[in-house]
């Protein structure tokens, strides 16, 4: 399989799409239940933490820009540990895919097709995901740029539709729960950043022009964060934090409340159409990255034979999680944050520190790479 390359703009678009769909609705509902009208503060704090997380990840990859986090582990600690790291990252993607499915399926089930079986959206998502992943990361990245445009349009529509009902009093007073509680609640949005971190750890070697990696990474987080930050502010000001906390998919409630003029009073379908692009980008990127993670375990250079089996594994676990509403929300609120954070923070930090001990080995490997590979 030809090694694909993507641009910094493309990875930026992927990052924004990854933090958006779950971040604006499902995550905000959970945060609202914990910190009420401070939900936007918790989200903002999470954005700052996201910047640090991505900075650490990019710093790791820049040591040998051609190698992802698993390949660098192999250089430092050998293939067995690298395989172990690959499996751990794969397990992270299994969980992350389940959270994406929660967002996707509950949107469909709760608002558009309440009578349809849960299996149907899972299978449809899998088919579309497999198709996109087969086309490669370059195509998925282009689609992510389209997703980015749709996110911007979606935000403009929601601002236009809900500004007239916005009440600033709902946001005030701020910090009612104190800083500590807000930081604690920010962990839920951190799980969305965790997805970006893990994807970055695997995909950054495919990104051209390593000099602008930091810039694109940080810009992606700030941009993505801002597109999401508008939602907790609107949800608090329009729906109130109490109402936001009542719903699994609180963004849909906001979208339903939005109306432009007298005639366009139910345009949530247009919004969901725009939003679904971003959702499918998430599905494809996770499927692609999970396949890329597992490929070295099976000593495969081409990920295509892995896409279908891995898609089935991810979807099967996701289906088991979302089959029961209570199980899904328990997983999302209580189990997923510690799992995601320990992998997405623990692993990069550990490898970042190990890099200082194995500096010479890494530098030697980098020096031994062919010249053309070094000049990416």
């Amino acid at each position, binding site marked *: 399989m030809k090694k694909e390359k993507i641009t910094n703009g493309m990875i930026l678009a992927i990052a924004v799409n990854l933090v958006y769909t779950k971040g604006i609705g499902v995550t905000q509902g959970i945060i609202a239940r914990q910190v009420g009208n401070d939900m936007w503060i918790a989200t903002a704090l999470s954005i700052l933490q996201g910047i640090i997380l991505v900075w650490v990840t990019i710093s790791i990859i820049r040591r040998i820009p051609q190698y992802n986090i698993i390949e660098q582990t192999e250089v430092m600690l050998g293939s067995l540990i690298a395989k172990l790291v690959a499996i751990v990252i794969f397990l992270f993607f299994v969980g992350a895919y389940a959270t994406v499915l929660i967002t996707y399926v509950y949107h469909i089930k709760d608002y558009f097709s309440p009578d349809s079986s849960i299996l149907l959206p899972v299978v449809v998502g899998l088919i579309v995901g497999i198709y996109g992943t087969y086309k490669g990361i370059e195509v998925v990245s282009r689609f992510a740029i389209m997703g980015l445009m749709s996110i911007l349009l979606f935000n403009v529509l929601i601002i236009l539709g809900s500004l007239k009902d916005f009440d600033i009093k709902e946001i005030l007073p701020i910090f009612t729960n104190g800083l500590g509680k807000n930081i604690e609640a920010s962990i839920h949005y951190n799980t969305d950043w965790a997805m970006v971190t893990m994807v970055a750890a695997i995909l950054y070697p495919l990104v051209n022009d390593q000099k602008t990696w930091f810039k694109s990474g940080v810009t992606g987080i700030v941009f993505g964060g801002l597109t999401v930050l508008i939602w907790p502010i609107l949800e608090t000001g329009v729906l109130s934090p109490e109402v936001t906390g009542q719903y699994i998919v609180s963004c849909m409630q906001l979208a339903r409340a939005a109306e432009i003029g007298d005639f366009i009073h139910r345009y949530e379908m247009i919004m969901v*159409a725009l939003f679904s692009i971003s959702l499918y980008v998430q599905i494809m990127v996770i499927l692609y990255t999970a396949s890329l993670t597992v490929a070295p375990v099976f000593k495969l250079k081409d990920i295509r034979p892995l896409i279908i089996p891995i898609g089935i594994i991810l979807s099967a676990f996701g289906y088991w999680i979302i089959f029961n509403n209570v199980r899904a929300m328990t997983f999302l609120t209580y189990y997923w944050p510690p799992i995601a954070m320990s992998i997405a923070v623990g692993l990069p930090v550990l490898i970042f520190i190990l890099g200082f001990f194995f500096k010479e080995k890494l530098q030697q490997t980098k020096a031994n790479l062919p010249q053309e590979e070094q000049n990416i």
Partner: protein
Amino acid sequence: MQDKINDLLQLPIERSLKKNIEIIEQIIENNVDIVKREFVFHGPIDISGVVFYTDGLVNVQLIDSEILKPLMIYSSQIREQDNTQVTHFLAENIKNHLILNTAVKFVTKISDALENILSGDTLVLLDFCDQGFIASTKGWDARSVGEAETETVVRGPRDGFTESIRTNTALVRRRIRDPYLRMEAMKIGEKSKTDVHIAYVKGIVKDGIVNEVRERLQKIKIDLVLESGYIEELIRDAPNSPFSTIQSTERPDKVAAALYEGRVAIFVDNTPFVLLVPTFFWQYIQASDDYYSSFWTGSFFRLIRYIAFLISLTLPSLYVLIVSFHQEMIPTTLALTIAAGRDVSPFPALIEALVMEISFELIREAGLRIPKPIGQTVSIIGSLVIGQAAVQAGFVSPSILIIVAITGISSFAIPNYATSFALRLVRFPLLIASGTLGLMGFGAVFVMITIHVLSLRSFGEPYTAPLFPLKPSDQKDIIIRAPWWKMQKRPQMVDDNPNRSESGIKPEPPKANSGESDTDKKSNDNKNNDNNKNNQSNEKGRKVKQKRTWRK
């Protein structure tokens, strides 16, 4: 039998005319359209000769006046110059001094001789001469240059390509008097030996693209090429895709413009459709008029075409999914109207839409195939089926009728037939998915179509460029058409020479002072200039006069 002819074709032209004639006659057998005319060349000695040509493909007057007459009547001129025996030297002399034809060449193989005869050239063979003369005498009845029927414009040139490759290249050459314009010739088709030319502007096009085009064309192994569609299908990047990644056009102005955007044109003989590569998706929505009318008009109608594109692709599907699954999305009054209309129809919305769409395609196809004199019949039947009668009979609801009509009209607003066809094709899976799975199905199929389009490439260039991947400087001619003076740069695909001109494209208007119009100022300036010139010349005259007086 085939092998025998193949063996004969490989033979060289012999010194014996009789043998050469025998070989050719064995190959052509009893072909009535290949004419043999024997004559005697009164050279140093009397030599027998023969001409072969294909009746209908040649201009007989040319053969008479430029070949036979000089060879038979003016041959004495050669005798005076040359008394040697019949050799290659004589052949050269005949070519240089006798045959009046503008393009004469020698052939030494029977296969080459035959190929030229069948292309409309004339073969001249002389006894004792082991090579033949080929004179260009092509001349057959061809359609004259007329309006491009599939790409009509309100404003713009009316000439369109014809079936003659030479006329077509001339139509482009007339527009581009640039020595950097290159036309390379090749023949494709083992049996048809169809003339194919590739045209590009050196220094504008990337060398890689020209090489890729050349290489793909050279690799084609097919017996017959009857239309550029054959070539298009064989050199496409994604042959299984319903979307065409090679643009075809009947308009020489479109080809000329494309060449200066760094693209390559492929001319194929016997068809008025010229291929342009690489092609980007957005180019199918652009029409020649966009560039000839004001940029406001061009941009507006381009936007209308984009809307038509979206309607053509999605309207029936959106109607079906809203009516079948998400009625709450429609404003109440409209929902009641649609519901009242649907009362008469016994079928679900999906079936209604499918039947109407298929009926529409049926009428369109029949309208295309039917002989012109009875074309009106189809119109009448069409208006009966897709019309009030279908509603009154209770087969369909009035709303689906309007949806199908708008969709049909929108599909015809797209300037390129291939794209409009591709849209009609992908509309069906979208419709079925929307009718069975609602918004989820529509979203899924729409995303798959989008992913498919994003994955396409045309001769190595991304099909959806310059929007995906984004090339900011190229956005001036994608969704809208920016004014010409804003499009100083050529598209990024151009190799070097990225600017259309060194200085600005647009001349600056004169700077006005208060109290006088710009043109007044210009006239005054001109007058002042004239006065100054007059004064200067008067002064000069006076000086000359003074000089003369002084001399006197």
